[in-house]
C-alpha cells in the first residue's frame, strides 16, 4: 500500500513540478506568434509559386493575417478555399483580375523559315546563343520548349508545330515562362483582353513575310481600323494600348493580311483577309 502511495505521490509531485516549470516558462519565455498564420497557411495550396507576389505561401499567409493582402490574390487556390480563408479571417475575399500567360508569336515550324540546323542542348536559350538558333525570324519562338519545362502547372504544351500553347485554365500566372523565354515572348495579360498581337518581328513588309507567313508586316491596317489610338504602329509592329481596352473590337483584326493580330474568344480568331494556313508539316531548311 505504501508503495502505491509513494508512486502516486511521486507522480503527482512530478506532474506539478513540470506543470509549474512550464507555466513559468510560458510566462517568462513566451514569444507571441499569431496562431492564425499557421491555420491560414494550412489552407493555402503550398505551391510557393509566387503568383500572389510574395516570396511564398507562408509570407502570403502572414500578410493575409495582418490584412496587407486579400485571399483572392492567390490564383492557385480554389475559389472555395479562398472563400473559407476570407470567412475565417473575416475579410473581403478580394479579387485579382485573372491573368494568363500570352505568347507573342505564331510562327510554328509550318510557317516560319529556318536557316540552320541547330544541334546541341535541347533548350531555346542554348539555341538562341548559337547564332540565334537558325530561325529566320530573330524575334520568334525557337520551339525547344524551355517554357513547357519550366511551367510547374503543366499549363504549357508544345503543339505539333513546336509552338507552345497555354491552357488558360491551368495557368496560374506565376510568370515563370515569362522569365525563362530567351526571346521574351510571354507576358501576363488579363484573361479578359481579347485583342492580341501574336508577333514581335520588327521587319517590314516582304522582308517580314519572307521569314514567317504569319508575321506582322507593319502594314498599319489594324491601326487605321481600330477606334481611337487603341492600336498604334511602333517600329513596324502593331502595339495595343490596353488602357483603351474598353473600345476593343473585332474590327481591328478584319483586314490584317497575315493574321498576326487576333481576337481571343473561345479560341483564336483571325480576320477574314488573313492568309489561310494549309501547310501541316515543317518547312524545309532554307
Amino acid at each position: 500500500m505504501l508503495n502505491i502511495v509513494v508512486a502516486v505521490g511521486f507522480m503527482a509531485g512530478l506532474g506539478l513540478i513540470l506543470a509549474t516549470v512550464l507555466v513559468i516558462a510560458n510566462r517568462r519565455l513566451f514569444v507571441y506568434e499569431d496562431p492564425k498564420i499557421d491555420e491560414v497557411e494550412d489552407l493555402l495550396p503550398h505551391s510557393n509559386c509566387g503568383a500572389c507576389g510574395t516570396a511564398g505561401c507562408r509570407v502570403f499567409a502572414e500578410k493575409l493575417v495582418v490584412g496587407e493582402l486579400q485571399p483572392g490574390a492567390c490564383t492557385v487556390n480554389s475559389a472555395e478555399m479562398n472563400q473559407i480563408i476570407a470567412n475565417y479571417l473575416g475579410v473581403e475575399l478580394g479579387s485579382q483580375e485573372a491573368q494568363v500567360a500570352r505568347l507573342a508569336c505564331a510562327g510554328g515550324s509550318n510557317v516560319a523559315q529556318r536557316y540552320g540546323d541547330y544541334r546541341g542542348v535541347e533548350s531555346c536559350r542554348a539555341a538562341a546563343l548559337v547564332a540565334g538558333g537558325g530561325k529566320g525570324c530573330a524575334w520568334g519562338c525557337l520551339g525547344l520548349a524551355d517554357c513547357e519545362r519550366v511551367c510547374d502547372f503543366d499549363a504549357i504544351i508544345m503543339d505539333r508545330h513546336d509552338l507552345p500553347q497555354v491552357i488558360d485554365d491551368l495557368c496560374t500566372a506565376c510568370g515563370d515562362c515569362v522569365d525563362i523565354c530567351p526571346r521574351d515572348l510571354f507576358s501576363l495579360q488579363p484573361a479578359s483582353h481579347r485583342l492580341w498581337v501574336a508577333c514581335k518581328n520588327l521587319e517590314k513588309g516582304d522582308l517580314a513575310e519572307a521569314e514567317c507567313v504569319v508575321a506582322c508586316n507593319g502594314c498599319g491596317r489594324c491601326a487605321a481600323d481600330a477606334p481611337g489610338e487603341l492600336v498604334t504602329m511602333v517600329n513596324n509592329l502593331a502595339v495595343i494600348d490596353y488602357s483603351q481596352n474598353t473600345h476593343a473590337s473585332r474590327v481591328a483584326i478584319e483586314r490584317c493580311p497575315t493574321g498576326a493580330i487576333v481576337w481571343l474568344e473561345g479560341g483564336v480568331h483571325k480576320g477574314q483577309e488573313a492568309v489561310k494556313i494549309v501547310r501541316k508539316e515543317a518547312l524545309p531548311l532554307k
Partner: protein
Amino acid sequence: MADSRAVKSLRSSPHLKQSVTVAQIMRNVVFALIPVCAWSVYAFGFSVLLLLATTTLVCMLSEAMFCRISGRTSSLGDWSIVITGLLLGLTLPPGFPLWMAAVAAFVAVGLGKALFGGLGYNVMNPALVGRAFVQAAFPVAITTWSPPFLPGRFTELIPSTLTAPFMMPEPIDAWIDQKSIDAFSGATPLALQKFEQVSTPLTELLTGTVSGSAGETSAIIILLGGIYLAARRMMDWRLPVGVMLGAVIVSLPFWLLDAARYPDPLFVLLSGGLMLAAVFMVSDMVASPVTPLGVWVYALFIGMLTVVIRLFGGLTEGVMYAILLGNAISPLISLVTQPKVFGERNKS
C-alpha cells in the same frame, strides 16, 4: 559552295573534340584486368574461370534488364559493367559457390548502380556493394579459402563451387587436405599475421602464391596494369598512390613501436586486397571526388582506414569497408575541397 544550302549545322563551341570516350576508358581498364584474371585462373584453376564468367555474365544480364525496366538506353556498350563483373569476381574466394556469386552480381548492379540511375550516378562502388552484401549474407562461405596451385585444379572444380542454389556449401577442408601435400591452415596471410603474428614472405605476396580472394594474388601483375592505365591517363595515379601512402602512414609507427605484434608496412601494402583495391577500385572515378585536393584526402582516408580496421577492428581485411566508407563521405570531401580559382589569393 556559295550556295548557302550546304551549310546548316549550328553548334556551340568547341568544335574540336579529344577522341577518348567513356567506352574507351572502360575498355582499357578491362584490358588491364585481363592479366590479373589470367593469373588468378592459372593459380586457382577452373573454379575461378567459372566464377569470373558468372559474375560478369550476371552483371551484364542484370544491367540489360534494369535498363529495359527503367527505359534507359542499354549501357552495355560502355563496358563499365564488365569491369564491375570482373572486379566482383576477383574479390571473392576461389571456391565461392556460383549461386552466391550470381546473387552478389545482381545486388551489385541493382543496389549499387541501377537504383541510382546507372553509370555515373552510383554513389558507391557497385562491385564492392555486391561483395559487402554477400559478405554480410554468407559470412562463412566468403571466408572459406583454398590454397593456390593445387594439383588437378584444371581437371577438377573446388567442391563448393557447384553448390546448388540456396543451399549451404559443403566444407572443403577434407578435399584440400587430400589434395595438398603440406597442411593448409585455411588462413590468409592477413589472418596469420593478425591472429598468430606469422608473417608471409614478401616474394610469395608479390607473385601471389598465397591463399586469398581470386584477385588479391599477384601484386606485380596488378601494379603493371595500374601503370599501364596511369600512363594512358585512364586512371588517376594519385588515388592508388594516396591509398598506399595512407596505409604506410598509419602502419609505420605501429611497426616501429612493436615489430613483433604489428605488421611491417610492406606487408600491409602487399597482403590482402589492398593492391587490387588501390589500383582498380579506389580509382573508380564515379564514386570518388573530382577535386584535386579531394582526391588526396579521399585516397589517404581509405588507406588509413584500411589499416585501422586491419589492426584494431574485428576483421582481418578492411579495404572493402574502407572504400565503401570513403564512397560515403566522398560528396562531403568534394564539398570542402573545391579548387581555388585561378588568381584567387589565400586569405591571410
